[in-house]
Each structure stands twice: as C-alpha cells, then as structure tokens.
C-alpha cells in the first residue's frame, strides 16, 4: 500500500511537472489565440508586439489549409477558428480547401496547393498515415507543412506538429474518476470512445486505462461512436441496456455527447457521474448548471489549426516564438488537457466551441 502511494506520488510529481511545462506553452499559444474577447486580444497584441513585434505586418504569406468534413462541432470550429485567425492578419492569405473525408480528394487538394506554390500548408488529415506521402512531397517541394491534430507516420513529413494531448485527456479523465471514486475499487466504469480507427482515440483510451489502474479501477464496459450525435445516441442506448448500474462514464467527445446525453435522458438514468471530452459550450453550460449527470469535461482545444496558421506565418516570415529563447519555431507544440468542473468552468466557457 505504502509502496503504491510513493510510486503514485512520484508519478504525480512527474505529471504535475509536465503540466506546468505544457501549461506554460499552451498559455503562450492560447492567450494570443483567444478570439472571444476583443479586449483580451488587443491587450495581447500589445504585449506580443512589445515582446517581438510578431504581429506586425510582414511579408505576404499564402497558406493552404485543409481539414476533414465538418461533420461535428469541434471540426467545424477547427476551420472557423483558423479562418478567423487568418483574417486578423493583413499579410496572410488563407486558401481553404474544405471538408472531405475521402483521402483521395484530400490528397488532390494538397497537390493543388503544391501546384500553386503556396508558402506553407496547414493540414489536419482525415487519416494521418494516408496523407503522409503527399505531405512528404510538399516538404520535398520546399513547402513547410504544419501537421495538426492527427499525426503523420513519418516525422519528416511535417516541419511543425500541433497536437492536443490525447493520452493526457485520458489521464485527466481517469484521474478525475479516481479522485471521485475515493478508494471505491468496485466502482463500475464505462467508456464511450470516438472513431476507433484513429490513433487519437486509441491514445485517449490508453491514457484512461493507465490512470484508472493507478487507483485499482478498470474499464468495465467500452463502446465506440463516431463523433456524431446520432452515433453517440445509438451506442449509448446499447451501453445502458447492457450495464444496469454504472458509477462513472467517460465520453470522449462532447459533440457525440449531445446524443449520449439524449440517450441517458430517454433511459431515465442518473445514478452515475459523467465526464465529457473536447469541451463544447453546451457541455460547459450543463456543468455550470449542476443539474445534469455531466459533471466535468476534459478540454481538447479546437483552436489547434488556428495555432497552426499562426505558426505557419511565423515560419514563413522567419520569425521566432517570442516567448521562447529558441530562434526557430519549435518542431512540436502539444497543448494541455485540463479538467473543467463547476469550480473552474467560468475560466473556460468563453473559449469553448459550439457543437
């Protein structure tokens, strides 16, 4: 027992160390990205300008942007926030090749960007591995590729990678469950995952299982939806049928969560605590109201592509990230996955996306 607690402590220390490091990074990225409050943006602009004049208009930068179909709120917000961020700069021209879940068409979009000779490409691939060959081709043509969210399988295919912390999301959700279970080793834990074929889903589940095992819990029932409302409601109905009593339920994604909550309502179930993922506005409103089974959500920033656009601009203009000593734009930026509860929801609700 004591051994366990010491290992836990050292792990916790490690985790919190990481948290501090990542928080510093994400804060640097986040503050200047916050598109919701006008006053905060202008305040940031002045501080950034003072630090490195990064936001001052420079050479014209043409950025090609491609993302999968906006079939859920988070993905819609990815493209929207990238466009919004690009519009803030008069030296950025964003070419948006929008919304396809056909890798063949997305490859064609990137080919078009290469033909056009854009200065940089910001790419959220439908399937990271499938888009790797064309990203390598773009890099070989001298166009830096900024890989967002779903990683390529070859590190040479991207100059910069902007990632959420999928494993960390799972860890945050699992740690929250452990905290709430408070030593109860018989607690029934259920998990509703997103699209199972994506490495990000596998990472989230791995993080969740790892964190649960720290307090002697494991996932008793697991189903996978497809990030859409409809799929969320379908699989939840089956999950609830299968499990007569649940103590904790982690749902990977707040967009499919709309369907998940509808199915829970229909079944009249409220015996468990639900944790969400991604951090949509309506999820946060439910958490704030306090009368829902949804008590917490784990953030997965939908402003990643907007960060990608900003970094692409810095990269092409030969600027550095002003809050770092390093003169080159980093190879990889990983954002942090904090847990939002009723206690701190006000801090996050303004930057949440509409699902």
């Amino acid at each position, binding site marked *: 027992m004591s051994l366990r607690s010491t290992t836990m402590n050292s792990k916790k220390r490690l985790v919190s160390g990481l948290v501090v490091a990542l928080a510093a990074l994400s804060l640097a990225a986040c503050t200047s990205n916050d598109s919701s409050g006008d006053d905060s943006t202008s305040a940031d602009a002045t501080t950034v300008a003072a630090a490195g004049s990064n936001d001052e208009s420079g050479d014209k930068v043409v950025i090609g942007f491609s993302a999968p179909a906006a079939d859920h709120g988070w993905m819609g917000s990815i493209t929207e926030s990238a466009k919004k961020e690009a519009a803030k700069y008069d030296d950025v021209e964003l070419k948006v090749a929008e919304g396809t879940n*056909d890798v*063949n068409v997305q490859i064609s979009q990137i080919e078009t960007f290469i033909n056009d000779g854009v200065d940089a490409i910001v790419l959220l691939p439908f399937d990271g591995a499938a888009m790797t060959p064309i990203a390598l081709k773009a890099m070989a043509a001298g166009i830096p590729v900024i890989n967002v969210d779903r990683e390529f399988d070859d590190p040479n295919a991207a100059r910069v990678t902007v990632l959420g912390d999928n494993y960390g999301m799972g860890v945050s959700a699992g740690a929250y469950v452990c905290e709430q279970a408070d030593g109860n080793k018989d607690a029934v834990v259920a998990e509703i995952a997103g699209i199972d074929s994506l490495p990000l889903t596998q990472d989230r589940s791995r993080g969740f299982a790892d964190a649960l095992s720290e307090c002697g819990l494991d996932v008793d029932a697991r189903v996978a939806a497809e990030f859409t409302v409809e799929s969320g409601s379908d699989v939840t109905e089956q999950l609830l049928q299968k499990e007569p009593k649940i103590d904790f339920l982690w749902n990977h994604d707040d967009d499919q969560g709309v369907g998940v909550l509808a199915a829970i309502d229909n079944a009249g179930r409220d015996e468990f605590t639900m944790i969400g993922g991604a951090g949509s506005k309506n999820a946060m409103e439910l958490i704030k109201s306090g009368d829902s089974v949804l008590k917490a959500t784990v953030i997965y920033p939908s402003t990643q592509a907007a960060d990608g656009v900003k970094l692409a601009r810095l990269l092409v203009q030969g600027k550095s990230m002003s809050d770092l000593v390093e003169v080159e734009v980093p190879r990889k930026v990983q954002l942090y996955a904090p847990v939002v509860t009723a206690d701190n929801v006000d801090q996050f609700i303004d930057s949440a996306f509409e699902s």
Partner: protein
Amino acid sequence: MSTDDSIRVEKAALETEREPNRALAVLRTSVGRNAGLVVALLVICVVGAITAGDRFTTTDNALTILRLAAIIGVVSVGMTFVIIGGGIDLSVGAIVALSSVWCTTVATQQLAEDVHWLWMVAVALLVGAACGLINGLFIAYGGIVPFIMTLAMLASARGLAEIISDKKTQITHVQGFQDFFTSKFLGIDFQIYLFALVAIVGWILLNRTTFGRRTVAVGGNPEAARLAGINVKRHTVYLYVLIGVCCGIAALMLVARTTTGSSTHGNLYELDAIAAVVIGGTLLTGGRGTIVGTVLGVLIFTTITNIFILNNRSFSEQSLFKGAIIVAAVLLQQRLASRSST
C-alpha cells in the same frame, strides 16, 4: 415484350429519318451523346480557366485532375458493365476498403518479408474478385435483387475490413510495390496509364467481343437473351466478378497513393461511380451505355472538384452542385429518349 420493343425500335428508326431537326437526331445516338458530354466538359474547363486562370490550365493541374480521376475511374468502368447488364453494385467502396486492408495485411505480416510484392497485387485482385463472385452468385442463382445483395456486401465487406485491421490504419512500405505503382513514364503517372488501360480494355470488351454484346443483351431484355441461347445467370456472375476485379485494382492504386490500407478507404465510392456512369449516358435500367461516356462522366466530376478546390469553394456547395448536374443530365436524357419514342 420483345415484339413491343422491336416495334418501338422501328418507329424510332422511321422517326429519325423524318426528323426535321438533324441536331436532335444526332444527340440521340451514343456518339452524339458523347459529343454532348465533351462539350459539357469543355464548358466546365472554360469556367475553370476563367475563374482560376493559369492555375487551372497548367500541365501540373491537368495531371492532378487525372490522378484524382484514376481511382474512381477504374471503379466506374466496372460499374458501367454491371449497370448495362441490368444490375447495380452498391458495395464497390466497401470492396475497395476490404481489398486495401487485406493486401496491406499480407504486406505487413512477418512471413511476407521474403514474398514478392506481386503477392500483394494478387491478394487485392483475388479479394475483389471473390467479393464480386459472392455478389454475383447470390444475385444470379439466389434470386436476391442486386440492390439488396450489394447493400448487404457493403455492410459485410466494411465490417470484415474493420475486423481484419482492428479498425487501425495499416501502413506499408513495400519498396517494389511503391516504386511500381507511383512510377512515372514521360512525366505522366503510372496510375493515369492504368486508368487509360482499364478504360481501353473495357471499351474493347464492350464493343468488340461477344462478352460485350451479351452484356447489352442481358441488360436490355434478359428473357430475349435467354431465348437467344445466352446463359444469363452465368453472365451476371461474370459481370460482378469483373467489377470486383476493378475494385481490387482501385484498392492497389489507393494503397500506393496513401501507403496505407484502411477500413475507411473508398467511402461513398459507390455514389461517385454510379453518378459518373449515369451522366455518361448509361441507362440505369440496363441495355445501353458507353465506356467513353463513363470516362467523360468521371472527368466532368473530378474537373468540377478541382475547380472548386482552386476557387476555395466549400465541399458542401460542390455536393449540391453535383446533385444538380445529375438531375439535369438524367432529365435531358429522358427528354431525348421520350421524343424518340413518340
């Protein structure tokens, strides 16, 4: 039924002779219809050249369009045969996914290390052919309508692909395979040649062989075809095996293009292929159609996609536009057909 048809044909022939408007008569022949599609494609190209300027008219961009067209084009050639033969295949996308997963599984397994990459090719083609065989057997001998049988295959093949791949994307780096399928000759990608080859073989098969004439006969009037001594059931099976093999080829092209096999590959290819075949002038009820029309149909759709990408227009607008084109093309064909029969 058959006498009815022949009367109609005679009437139509007389009508054509008396046709005051020569242009309309020409449009009714398959050559005329294809000329109409060429004009449509040229109009679309002019729109592309006007809206996107020299970004549209470069050789690189033409190759980009052809590369995009190649994979769906191969599937569409197979689909042309099935639809002319009076059937339909909704399972093509799922078969592409299953073939891609199966052949990458072969490539990633340990024992495959000393097996030649041609083994991958063989597996993809065999998986496609086997799925087609199952479709064909149940449709021809089991009496299940093609729509239902291939719908069932759509579900099952993708399900099996998910099971084999454990829903993961399977990455392959078999050098020989990659080199061959992404090679270039005279600056043009091998995949484009492959599409051309499949289209030419398809054209010869349809227009210059007994197999082609039987396909038209089976689709036009199965009963008459049977009385004429054609083994309609066996021929139906052949047609589905043929489209299965086309799906296998398309899967190989997609694996080479993405270096991956995945159960999500080929999503909605059935709709793209059927749309291309239909605007290419093939009758959905069977008995009439051309490979040239299908190839033009594929090129029209992929060129539109390209122009939308060049102009930063959204995919949703494009889908809306494509739907409108399908309706317009079918309405036009129906008007031409009904005029010729009155």
